């Protein structure tokens, strides 16, 4: 970490996005996490994704719970709305906010403790209800703030910094999200921004519950030999299913890949994900096969990363509930109180 604020000077030839912002306009306060923390890289990837999508910062709401990961929203998007909730309760606060104002872009940031332990139930229900959000778990497999105990996502047999092996089975949040009906599921690695940034962009554009399990090595307590969440381990066992390029808007698809290796996927807003397959005939539209595939890789000690599952025609919570398109918090008295005549009509219909 550093005590100094990041200097305001920037590169004189920084590119600007459609809103005239540079990527530095998406920054927040200086991070107080440990030097080299994977979470800071994820923050940086989020800023990059929002910059590249030209998202107006004031239309984004970032919500988090408790933990190292949940501190990070302070360190990015300083001009956005934010809510730091009770431990593990981010999903319900986010769901409530989304119900009240469907027009904001919701970004939930959580950790393995916040989502796989204390907030496991909350996580499950927010995914199950198809809340339109991007839910990122910054997964380091360790309780960093309390100095390195195993978390619920630590792999069985993974060693602690002191050399003790974890006796318990891990929770794999990505397959659980698949089972719960998430319509966008991905896994990535904080040390691979080329993969992570397009995934976050696609998740932000996805209309429905988008879940990203992002492995994020804890430099202080979980980056040693024997750990399965260290930089070296993840780099050595990263089985990327695909690589993707995110194309905003209806940009023409230029085929510069061998035929059959690039698969264009069009999203709701017309944006395109160009998927380059890396793992044979892996199909991102087959939920059941995806679960099996990830498990088989995990058995072999490999970590499946990339876009795991996508349902581009998903319906989100508001569509399921049939709410009005006007955000509920913007409805006026006249909309909410139809008047005596309307009440009379309703009452008559019930007689």
């Amino acid at each position, binding site marked *: 970490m*550093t005590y100094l604020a990041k*200097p305001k000077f920037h590169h*004189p*030839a920084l590119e600007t996005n459609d809103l005239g912002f540079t990527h530095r306009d998406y920054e927040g306060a200086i991070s107080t996490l440990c030097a080299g923390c994977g979470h*800071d890289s994820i923050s*940086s990837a989020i800023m990059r994704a929002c910059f590249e999508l030209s998202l107006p910062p004031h239309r984004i709401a970032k919500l988090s719970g408790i933990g190292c990961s949940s501190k990070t929203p302070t360190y990015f998007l300083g001009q956005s709305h934010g809510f730091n909730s009770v431990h593990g309760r981010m999903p319900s606060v986010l769901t409530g906010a989304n119900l009240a104002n469907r027009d904001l872009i919701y970004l939930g940031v959580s950790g393995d403790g916040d989502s796989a332990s204390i907030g496991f139930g909350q996580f499950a229900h927010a995914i199950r209800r198809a809340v339109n959000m991007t839910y990122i778990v910054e997964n380091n497999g360790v309780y960093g703030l309390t100095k390195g105990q195993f978390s619920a996502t630590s792999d069985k047999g993974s060693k602690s910094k002191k050399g003790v092996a974890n006796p318990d089975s891990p929770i794999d949040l990505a397959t659980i999200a698949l089972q719960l009906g998430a319509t966008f599921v991905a896994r990535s690695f904080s040390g691979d*921004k080329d993969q992570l940034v397009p995934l976050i962009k696609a998740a932000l554009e996805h209309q429905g519950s988008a879940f990203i399990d992002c492995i994020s090595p804890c430099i202080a307590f979980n980056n040693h030999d024997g750990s399965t969440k260290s930089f070296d381990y993840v780099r050595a066992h990263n089985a990327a299913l695909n690589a993707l390029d995110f194309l905003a808007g209806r940009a023409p698809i230029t085929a510069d890949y061998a035929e059959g290796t690039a698969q264009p996927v069009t999203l709701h807003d017309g944006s395109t994900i160009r998927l380059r397959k890396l793992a044979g005939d892996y199909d991102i539209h087959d939920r059941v096969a995806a679960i099996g595939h990830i498990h088989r890789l995990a058995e072999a000690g490999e970590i499946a990363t990339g876009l795991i599952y996508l349902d581009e025609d998903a319906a989100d919570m508001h569509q399921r509930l049939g709410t009005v398109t006007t955000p509920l918090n913007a409805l006026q008295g006249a909309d909410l109180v139809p008047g005596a005549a309307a009440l009379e009509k309703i009452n008559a219909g019930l007689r």
Partner: protein
Amino acid sequence: MTPTDTSDPSYFHKVVDCQWACPAHTPVPEYIRRIAAGDYDGAYLINWKSNVFPGILGRTCDRPCEPACRRGRVEEEPVAICRLKRVAADYKNGVAALMPRAPDQRNGKRVACIGAGPASLTVARDLSPLGYEVVVFDGDARAGGMMRSQIPKFRLPDSVIDEEVGYVMQTGVDFRGGRRVDSMRALLAEGYDAVFVGAGAPRGRDLDLPGRKEAAANIHIGIDWLSSVSFGHTTSIGKRVLVLGGGNTAMDCCRSSRRLGGSDVTVVVRSGFEEMKASPWEKEDAMHEGIPILNFHVPKEFLHENGRLVGMVFEKVRADHDEKGRRTLVSTGEPDVTLDCDDVLIAVGQENAFPWIEPDAGIAFDRWGLPVLDKTSFQSTLPNVFFGGDAAFGPKNIIWAVAHGHEAAISIDSYCQGVDVTKRPPPMTSLISQKMGIHEWAYDNAIAPDLRFKVPTLANEIALKDIRTEVELGFDPKLAFAEAQRCLNCDAQTVFSTPLCIECDACVDICPTDCITFTANGEESDLRQRLTAPSIHPDQAIYVSDTLKTGRIMAKDEDVCLHCGMCAERCPTGAWDMQKFYLEMSHAGQACRSRA
């Protein structure tokens, strides 16, 4: 690209843009930090060692360092390096006692220096403390050369020259003022072991136009007129003055005229305002004193009535560029312009002149009248004669003369000791970690967001009254501190250790100026296309690491690095470290000989 070889002293030297640009390679960031710390003596001595005349240069230097300053690339204006140098000279307290004195024993070698300007005095200062008997000749009674004769006193008071020339003299130099050397052969016959020619470029160019002869009484050659003013022979000028020329001499001429009775002074230049040779700040100072600059006016004729100058005729031109980019001035076709005037000062350039060096003295000259010299040793075709300053390669400025003097002194020392003069001693360098704690450095790495501070000056009403009143007041210690804090400490180098890096990206994410990239290696032109932020100055180096674990390399564009140390503070493994690079040029002497 091959991994950057940081053991080559020129690599990190180039990152310190100001020091690299300084002909004498003054360690600028180091002395600026001393000023910020209030150690004016230390700051002065660092300067004195490198450039001999900190007080003089702090007022008059042509400042090649400032356009090079990195601050100018990330903000609007560079650090006021030159005027900070003056601060060191103004507020120093106890340097006199530390200055070298004449040695007890001489080494038996005799060196003659011709001219007592900055080049000769530098040679004298470098050689005299080593035991050489140095004799300096000058036509003027007091030493200083053009620093004393041509720079107006309102820019550079005599007291400053006296002090700094005094430090040179007290090393035991034998100064023979008022003795102009008029025969090289005669001087050589006196049996000196080596002769250094630092006689400057003493001849001002004239303009041979109609009316020049008839109106000669009111037409003056700029540099001659300036020295006449300096020595008090000229104390007045007409009310309406035209100054021809666009260099710094022209600026001194017009500002001097304003102080000697010229109420209507105009500078007229052939070229465009932007192409003028004068430093931008000197043009600004002139205009601030109410002197207009007319550009694209080519002088055609002096007008005179009854043997008296009454005006000048100019042709109006514009600049045309041919397909090769060469500029020609072509007439606009507008009617000629006549400007009334009482006096004209011609400041259109200087020339070298060596009428006192006999053609058969053994010293060869090229077709431009400049001596044929070895480019690094400044040795002439006569092995015991060396040149430096304006006398060597034509008119430049004080700091170049000092740099030449240092090099010539090394050559003379080598020559007198029987060492090959083409063997040049390498500079002394050191690279020391600045880490004091987890996020604590031995230098102040917080970036001050301030814009450049202005140097306080006297109000025009007072300044223009007396030609000997110094117009600039200099920074006071408070302003000096604030300005010193603008320095980015470019000598605090970002040093990268490949084996320690775990490629966590923390440095890439934190870097405020997006200098750092982890990517696949490639040719330089290709790599420059793939950096995190575009490479906009190809002359600025890319620092390339060895191949990392993932097969990639770290590439850092040195261009706009703030040296804020954020990368090193964020680095979990210490792969980045901030290390102070100190480079000191070798000067003549035993230590230097042993290094060569």
